């Protein structure tokens, strides 16, 4: 909120107002907002004079100005407009919202406070910054816009779960518990200062990412401990705070947006044509001392496509994938009300198509598809002037489909299927296949039925506010109740087709694989129930220059996932703040917070935080001497926070439990497989939550009449009692050790945001940039004593990746023979040479050292934009440096899935293989010699580490609001047309694929590609 702009410009002049009894030299007019609602208190200045007046409650004003004079109209949060006075007409001046907002009141956890009293480290973006991004989730808009938030995309499509999270054993009632909370975000990893984020929407923790951006008022990241302390036992995590639009008083504001776009896959690898593939495969075989399997005749047939059945050359990417897929959404927002009752309704429909082609003969959709209806409504009633009730209802109906084979499986097959594997169709029209590839890929993607998932979510919030000033001045009470239900079901209507191996010699068709008729299975995947109740007494009062506020709060949260026992979190907190004259601030909070999954008697802990602030800008030495400084605030806070992550390590792991094992051991001559029982993993009765000491020091500066704003933060977060397995895990115990509260990690770094905005007449422009640096260190890890310091993790960054250090390729046999190698391997020229760190002549586990992830991560974003007479433009540049990625070796430099199955060799190759090592290309080779499953070359080493740095034109939008007179003719409040895009341009250190979503990522090996989106739409306001 510190890096925002209040000023700027824009406007549409209305020339149709009639003139009545004009008094010469007096100009009358009206100031309205985007929704044609009057703006009270807008400042109207006659340019070049000192005449200033304000608009009244109806937005009307009268000002002394002569025709030809220029009026400057300003209103906080709106662009500045300059209007030339004409002689005969009243003026109607419409002020447009600024792209970057900076309101006086900002949202914090469970409260809304004055920006000036904010002591924590918080960054916020508002509606306009979210709506330029065409995507299925609002999270897509976050990268590059919020300092301290590292958002990395891992997939281009939502990966809904299609199997029940838990299932009964086939023969017994043994069930696996520990269900996973449903989360609709499977595409973007969010980390705030290195920690996973908790999403809180309107004061309630909800992991929901599919809210219409237009119904969101703001998205904030709460990064420091003081800001999160009210989460108590979960306060170590950063918070993504989402506030949806509240109703406002006024005539109904109706806004309808229709937009549609096309998506295009980015960064897919380029498969080798069959003849090149065959040639390289032969080379790999020969390198392994095996006989080649392709002849010259084969090469020619592959190359000339003379025998499409016997020597197919199928580009499977082109065969099963579409070049473009659609993305459409419609949004309707209504907002309005009276002093007594106010309402908002937001309806949103979104339909995202997938990348797969479909067959016209199949009457139903087999492509990936996600369509969603979201309704969010809010009704706010002042029952009495002192008693307010607010009811919010959120409903979501979502349907996802994917091909019957499952899109993950299809992508996995696609990435590893060679062009010459089999023909798509045989001469008789049947699906091609071989005895190894028994399920034709096209049959899987287009003809194997579909899997449908259905989500039904209902969330209800009830807020009560009661002003108790009559009892004690400044006292108020509020209560919140929330009930939510999320459920997901799956309908599996998949099938499998027969594929046939055609033999030209005798024109025979041999059936391979098998046929599975269409199923019709229905199952409940997840059912989650959330309940949240919170009550708070607030006290806020000023005594002269002394301002006090305090809050006494208690809350209760219950989560029931499918059939697990409820997870219950309780907080009992007290928070108090004081400031003197808005100059000196102090704030403290303590929270007695507990979680019921910890051992009885050890479920509650005390968490606390404190902060101080100093508004240096109000001191006379600045106010009187340095007038270009508008505001300069220093702030610092400390917190002791908690992280209740016991569920990540098992279900009730504090007590030793035993599980039944069916068919444990055959008994007697009958081999009856009676029940068995074994101990589950070792119990840790001492298990506690993890803790952290978090320190944040920051400053917020506003200069040059608020045109330039600077926010800077430094943080030092020490996480301790981290759960990890002890290093001295001696095997005599007879069972693996479980996690204990042992580790200490330090995260530190900083964030800087600069925002500049100004206007040249009606040309309002802005630029805002933020950069974050984040470093980590393992302060203590209970490692086994190692004789080699480079193996140790203690002292290294948390993110370090360990592997061998590659020294290049062995260039000759002599080099290979005289160098250290992996145990049992005889290297050859063209193999990767590794550094023998301990000089013992072999490459083994003692030669592992940090090879990547040791530098502090730096990520940044810049948004630039302008607005001129209804034309608007904005663009986001986003980037990361010091990022390193690893790519699974054989995905890049070998044949995927290569191996020998009978006599059938498999595995796809990509164009990067052309840069392999051969004796001729020894000096320029980028990859080792080809091989099928070479142990030496596939070890994780610095060779597999690539630069993950990138700079993206993440998003850009150009829009035009049609002139008001035109709208008026159509009886509309406003029309805006726009075109925007996502992932438009990328500069990356990693060539050939996308740096975020790439094939061979150890975390997501066969990803759904990231999408570039071109989108256009229109917003109509009634």
């Amino acid at each position, binding site marked *: 909120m510190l890096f925002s702009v209040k000023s700027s410009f824009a406007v549409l002049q209305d020339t149709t107002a009639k003139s009545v009894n004009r008094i010469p030299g007096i100009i009358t007019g009206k100031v309205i907002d985007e929704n044609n609602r009057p703006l009270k208190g807008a400042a109207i200045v006659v340019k070049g004079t000192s005449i200033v007046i304000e608009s009244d409650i109806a937005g009307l004003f009268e000002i002394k100005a002569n025709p030809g004079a220029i009026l400057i109209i300003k209103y906080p949060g709106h662009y500045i407009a300059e209007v030339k006075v004409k002689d005969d007409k009243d003026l109607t001046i419409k002020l447009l919202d600024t792209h970057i907002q900076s309101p006086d009141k900002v949202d914090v956890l469970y409260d809304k406070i004055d920006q000036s009293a904010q002591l924590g480290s918080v960054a916020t973006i508002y509606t306009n910054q979210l709506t330029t991004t065409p995507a299925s989730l609002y999270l897509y808009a976050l990268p590059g816009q919020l300092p301290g938030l590292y958002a990395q995309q891992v997939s281009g499509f939502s990966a809904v779960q299609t199997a029940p999270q838990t299932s009964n054993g086939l023969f017994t009632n043994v069930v696996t518990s520990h269900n996973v909370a449903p989360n609709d975000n499977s595409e973007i990893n969010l980390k705030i200062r290195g920690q996973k984020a908790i999403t809180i929407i309107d004061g309630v923790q909800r992991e929901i990412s599919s809210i219409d951006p237009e119904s969101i008022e703001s998205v904030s990241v709460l990064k420091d401990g003081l800001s999160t302390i009210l989460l108590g036992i979960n306060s170590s995590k950063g918070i993504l705070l989402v506030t949806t639009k509240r109703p406002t008083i006024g005539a109904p504001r109706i806004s309808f947006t229709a937009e549609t776009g096309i998506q295009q896959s980015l960064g897919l690898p380029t498969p080798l044509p069959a003849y090149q593939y065959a040639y390289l495969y032969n080379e790999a075989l020969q390198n392994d001392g095996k006989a080649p399997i392709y002849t010259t005749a084969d090469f020619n047939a592959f190359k000339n496509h003379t025998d499409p059945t016997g020597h197919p050359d199928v580009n499977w990417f082109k065969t099963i994938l579409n070049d473009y897929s659609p993305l459409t959404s419609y949004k309707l927002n209504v907002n309005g009300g009276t002093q007594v009752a106010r309402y908002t309704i937001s309806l949103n429909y979104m339909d995202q198509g997938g990348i797969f082609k479909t067959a016209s003969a199949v009457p139903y959709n087999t492509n990936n598809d996600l369509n969603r209806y979201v309704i969010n409504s809010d009704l706010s009633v002042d029952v009495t002037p002192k*008693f307010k009730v607010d009811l919010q209802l959120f409903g979501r109906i979502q349907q996802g489909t994917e091909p019957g084979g499952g899109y993950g499986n299809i992508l996995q097959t696609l990435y590893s299927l060679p062009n010459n594997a089999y023909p798509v169709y045989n001469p008789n029209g049947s699906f091609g296949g071989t005895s190894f590839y028994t399920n034709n890929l096209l049959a899987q993607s287009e003809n194997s039925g579909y899997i449908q998932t259905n989500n039904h979510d209902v969330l209800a919030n009830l807020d009560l506010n009661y002003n108790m000033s009559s009892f004690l001045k400044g006292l108020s009470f509020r209560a919140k109740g929330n009930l939510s239900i999320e459920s997901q079901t799956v309908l599996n209507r998949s099938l499998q087709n027969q594929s046939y191996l055609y033999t030209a010699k005798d024109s025979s068709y041999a059936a391979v694989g098998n046929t599975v008729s269409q199923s019709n299975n229905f199952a409940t995947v997840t059912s989650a129930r959330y309940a949240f109740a919170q009550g708070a007494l607030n006290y806020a009062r000023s005594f002269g220059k002394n301002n006090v506020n305090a809050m006494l709060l208690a809350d209760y949260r219950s989560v029931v996932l499918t059939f697990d026992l409820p997870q219950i979190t309780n907080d009992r907190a007290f928070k108090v703040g004081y400031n003197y004259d808005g100059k000196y601030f102090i704030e403290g909070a303590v929270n007695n917070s507990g979680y019921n999954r910890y051992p009885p008697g050890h479920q509650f802990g005390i968490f606390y935080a404190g902060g101080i602030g100093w508004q240096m800008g109000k001191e006379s030495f600045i106010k009187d001497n340095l007038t270009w400084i508008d505001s300069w605030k220093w702030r610092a806070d400390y917190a002791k926070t908690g992280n209740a992550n016991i569920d990540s390590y098992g279900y009730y792991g504090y*007590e*030793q439990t035993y599980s039944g*094992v069916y068919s444990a051991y055959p*008994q*007697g001559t009958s081999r009856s497989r009676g*029940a068995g029982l074994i101990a589950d993993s070792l119990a840790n009765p001492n298990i506690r939550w993890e803790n952290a000491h978090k320190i944040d020091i920051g400053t917020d500066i506003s200069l040059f009449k608020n045109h330039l704003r600077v926010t800077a933060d430094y943080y030092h977060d020490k996480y301790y009692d981290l759960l990890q397995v002890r290093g001295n895990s001696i*095997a005599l115990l007879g069972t693996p050790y479980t996690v204990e509260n042992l580790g200490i990690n330090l995260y530190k770094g900083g964030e800087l945001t600069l925002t500049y905005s100004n206007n040249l007449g009606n040309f309002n422009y802005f630029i805002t940039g933020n950069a974050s640096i984040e470093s980590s260190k393992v302060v203590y890890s209970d490692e086994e004593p190692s004789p080699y310091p480079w193996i140790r993790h203690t002292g290294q960054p948390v993110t370090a990746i360990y592997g061998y250090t590659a020294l290049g390729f062995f260039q000759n046999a002599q080099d290979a023979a005289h160098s250290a190698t992996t145990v049992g391997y005889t290297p050859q020229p063209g193999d990767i040479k590794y550094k023998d760190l301990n000089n013992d002549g072999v490459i083994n586990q003692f030669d592992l050292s940090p090879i990547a992830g040791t530098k502090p991560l730096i990520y940044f974003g810049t948004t630039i934009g302008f607005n001129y007479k209804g034309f608007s433009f904005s663009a986001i540049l986003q980037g990361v440096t010091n990022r390193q990625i690893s790519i699974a070796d054989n995905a890049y430099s070998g044949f995927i899935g290569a191996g020998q199955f009978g006599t059938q060799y498999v595995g796809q190759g990509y164009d990067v293989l052309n840069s392999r090592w051969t004796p001729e290309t020894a000096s320029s080779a980028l990859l080792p010699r080809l091989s099928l499953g070479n142990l030496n070359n596939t070890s994780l080493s610095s060779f597999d580490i690539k630069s993950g740095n990138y700079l993206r034109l993440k998003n850009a939008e150009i829009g035009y609001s049609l002139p008001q007179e035109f709208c008026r003719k159509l009886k509309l409040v406003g029309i805006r047309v726009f075109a925007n895009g996502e992932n438009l341009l990328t500069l990356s250190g990693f060539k050939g694929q996308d740096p975020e979503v790439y094939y061979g990522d150890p975390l997501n090996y066969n990803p759904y590609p990231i999408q570039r989106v071109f989108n256009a739409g229109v917003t109509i306001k009634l």
Partner: protein
Amino acid sequence: MSNYKNIFWVALILLACSIGACKKYEQFPVDKQTRSLVFDKYDSLGTNAYAYLTSMYGVLRDGHNVVGSDYLDAASDDAVSSAEGPTDAVTILSTASYNSFTLPVNENIWSGSQSYWAGIRMANEFVNNIGVVPVQQTYNGYSMKYEWKSEARFLRAYFYFELVKRFGGVPLLGNKVYTINDNISLPRNSFDDCIKYIISECDAIKDSLLTNPIISPNAYYGRATKGAAMALKARVLLYAASPLFNGGNIDGANPLTGYTNADPSRWAQAAQAAKDVIGLNSFALDSSFTDVFLTQNNSEIIFIRQGDNGNAVESANGPVGFPGAKGLGRTSPTQDLVDAFPMNNGLPISDPASGYDPNNPYVNRDPRLSYTVLYNGAQWLNTQLQTYEGGQSKPNTGQQQTLTSYYMRKFMGNFENANSYGAHNEDWVILRYAEVLLDYAEAENETLPAPSGEIYNAIVALRKRAGISAGTDGMYGLKPGLRQADMRTVIHNERRVELAFEESRYFDIRRWKIAETVMNQPRKGETIIQSGSATTYNVTNVLTTKFTQPKMYLYPIPYDEVLKNPNMKQNPGW
């Protein structure tokens, strides 16, 4: 106005109630079984405790293709793995390319997923807790739970011995079940202590175990019995009396690696223990050699690890080239093993009088040869096996096939005259009566200046059952009046051919301290050239094995375990 105040207070009270701890849910999940449910003081059937005991048997390893898909004996001089490459687990063992960090996982029964300490932990937990279970069923007048407890103690003793024979002395944990709060940096107990402990356990439990023949074999076959405890004792004492530990300690005065003195009386104890098993008269040699492995609950079986009724042995080890009966030919027996089998008259092939014909090497041999090894020309699946170069079962096409021209036959069903493999008993035999006879013969021979008639009788019994012709003297090829050393050679060889692939040879060459000799020679196979009707046999080297003495007589304690435990002493040389 005051109405709203009331509403407010009601809301506050409701809220307070919902925040307060109304006990609506159980505090611990009902689907989780705690110790008190496993060892249930109200369960007179002891169902859960019995299920726990049953699972303990599951820790016993099934030796079929267990070490990286090979038999452990493929790391001895009896066989090599057909799988190419130096990373094969048994090849790592036989070529000495392991160290304390890279001991193959299946032989690393100390740490990792195959750890026998897990079995010992389970046994201790059972021994400590079974007392509370009021099992009503009785055995010998006592609650059956005492019998169960003895079974757990047998398994514990067995697990300890499997550790001791690989590593030497190990820490003895007693009955303690260690928790996360305990310091477990324990030192190793001496080899002597370990043997004493195992023996004392065998002695203590033998009379409370089920006896043989087992009652209700339908339900109880496979359980540890008195015979199993006594046969284990015989084996343990035999190992302890053997040169590696008794006089040949690789580290002289180190009590962890063996006895620090040589005491011939240990042989007598071993002989007596074996004789005690024989004296039970509960066991007898089965009339058919293959039947021992194919028939459940035959008279020769003392203790088994239950297997399935299937044909996994054939799938993994059957000869390649039979389309209707898939085999991967994983195990390639060596020429050494084949040559160890005598002729049908009981004479070794090196004996000029044996009648051995190098140009027709497989005729008139000990019938156990054709029950142990599939050789060129052997009858299999209604075919004469072709393992000559380019033959059906040695096609040389690059796929996995025999390296020696031999395939393993032992443990397989009698599929000589079948077209495909059917299901059969695949139990893994851990202790059988034939071994007891061999244990007895070996130990007794060491205690006497000259072999006694009883020793002869033990060997004769095995040879007779094998189908070796008795000969005119009824001696089954044994020469009368052998000297002790000659009889030792006969017994060692008899043990090799009788117990081939049963995880005996791998340890025998160690405890006899001959591994440094036999394993530092190349492993050999036959290259058979079929040219018209002429067949020529050429011995070729298939693998150069290696054995570093003395350190490899014992496995290294896993690297990490020594690092993590300051009291853990590494074995010498590692």
